[in-house]
């Protein structure tokens, strides 16, 4: 019977062979729909089947640290630098950026529309004590939000019940915000691709403080000998190629470009 179990497991385990690479990427990369156009192009150009694990930046770096993925694609610069400095990643490559936007009820009770900077917008939410949904999942978006609060001289730990950590991905958090009639910080791509907008609209965007840099970091083969370093290298080269530039810059939802390619070849 043990043999039968082993056979079953082996069969199930080898279900996906071919040249594959495991990439841990942030939810926004997937929710935006960009991965749906990039992955087929990658398969077509360099014959690489990229298996995408959609997780928060926190979990993505953990996966890279333990060698459970071959590369990570995330957006949290300080975490990325630490990742490379500790020797988990062989190097860091900036690929593209998009921006974060403040979403809230169309009635805008906290007058966020009138703000001149992202910091000012958050301050007006805090002083109005308007309901605010935070990802609370240690993702890149969550870290960005925390950094913004810190710049605005606020510590979310001191906030009253109007500040709600939902501990969920971007989509689920948007669902929560929609249900609670709350403000939320989201990446533009996820917002545009979100299907349950309800009475919510984009209230504030454009401050450079809200820019969101995505980087590609292959896992260091010196740390984990089993990772597919060559495939990861090939993917890295493809991501900075003119072909990738065309696809990324050309990706639009509802006529709006979402990402700006900024890799230096």
């Amino acid at each position, binding site marked *: *019977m043990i043999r*039968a*179990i082993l056979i*079953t*497991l*082996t069969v*199930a*385990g080898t*279900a*996906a062979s071919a040249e594959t690479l*495991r990439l841990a990427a942030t*939810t926004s990369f997937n*929710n935006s729909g960009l991965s749906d156009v990039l992955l087929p192009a990658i398969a077509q150009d360099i014959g690489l089947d990229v*298996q*995408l*694990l*959609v*997780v928060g930046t926190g979990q993505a770096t953990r996966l890279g640290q*333990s*060698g*459970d993925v071959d590369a990570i694609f995330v957006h949290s610069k300080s975490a990325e630098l630490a990742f490379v400095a500790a020797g988990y990643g062989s190097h860091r490559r900036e690929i593209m950026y998009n921006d974060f936007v403040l979403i809230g009820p169309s009635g805008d009770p906290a007058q966020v529309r009138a703000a001149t900077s992202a910091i000012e917008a958050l301050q007006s939410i805090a002083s109005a004590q308007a309901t605010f949904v935070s990802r609370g999942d240690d993702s890149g978006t969550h870290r960005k939000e925390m950094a913004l609060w810190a710049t605005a001289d606020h510590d979310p730990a001191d906030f009253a019940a109007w500040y709600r950590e939902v501990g*969920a*991905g*971007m*989509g*689920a958090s*948007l*669902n929560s915000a*929609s249900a609670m009639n709350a403000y939320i910080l989201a990446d533009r791509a996820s917002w545009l*691709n*979100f*299907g*349950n*907008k309800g009475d919510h609209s984009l209230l504030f965007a454009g401050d450079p403080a809200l820019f969101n840099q995505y980087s590609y970091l292959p896992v260091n083969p010196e740390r*984990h000998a*089993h990772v597919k370093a060559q495939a990861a290298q090939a993917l890295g080269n493809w991501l900075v190629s003119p072909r990738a530039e065309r696809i990324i810059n050309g990706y639009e939802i509802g006529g709006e470009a979402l990402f700006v390619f900024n890799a230096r070849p």
Partner: protein
Amino acid sequence: MNEIWAGMAEAFLLIWSLDADLIDITLRSLQVSLSALVIASALALPLATWLAIRRFRHRRFVIATMNALMGLPPVVVGLIVYLLLSRTGPFGVLGLLFTPAAMIIAQVIIITPLIASITHQAMRELWSDYHDLLISLNTTHGQRIATLIWDGRRALMTAALAGFGRAIGEVGAIMIVGGNIDHVTRVLTTAIALETGKGDFALALGLGFVLIALSLCVNLAIHTLSRTEREGLW
């Protein structure tokens, strides 16, 4: 209410058009859960039957543990299996994390105690019925277990169906150990979670109805198969 109608329409559309992704996901759901069911049954049925007929010192403790394990939270199982299978974990070299095999392992751990517990209940009753006869006929332990399993097969079918139901509807553990990778480890439940996250409730609900329909079909199929037997009394 509108969303439920939209979900039904979406489900109908998905099935009607034989959507390739839907078929892929559905087959994987079946593959994973049926594999888990076969393995878990192969472990649980003999074990539970053996527990029903054997008297030994820590028997009560073992049975209580088995019943308690029925309530294992899938998320915790997922997390533990994840840590065990991670490259830094003890079984990391097998490279099983984020494969269907990992999902099968997690589901086996989740449903084996459930199947064993229901089996044990039924087998204990049957054994008190058969005890004197089987002892009198000088049967070996193996023959007793085989006889009880064969004659109690209807109860065992119920146990297996309960296990299958728990496996196919499970999302917490397989999301963690499978990673919900498109075309590799995405199954119906994780796809539903994903679509809900995207706010695409209609598609999520559509997949949900497919899942319910699938579960119903498997149940009906097994019941029909067992009813074709002529011994209809028990």
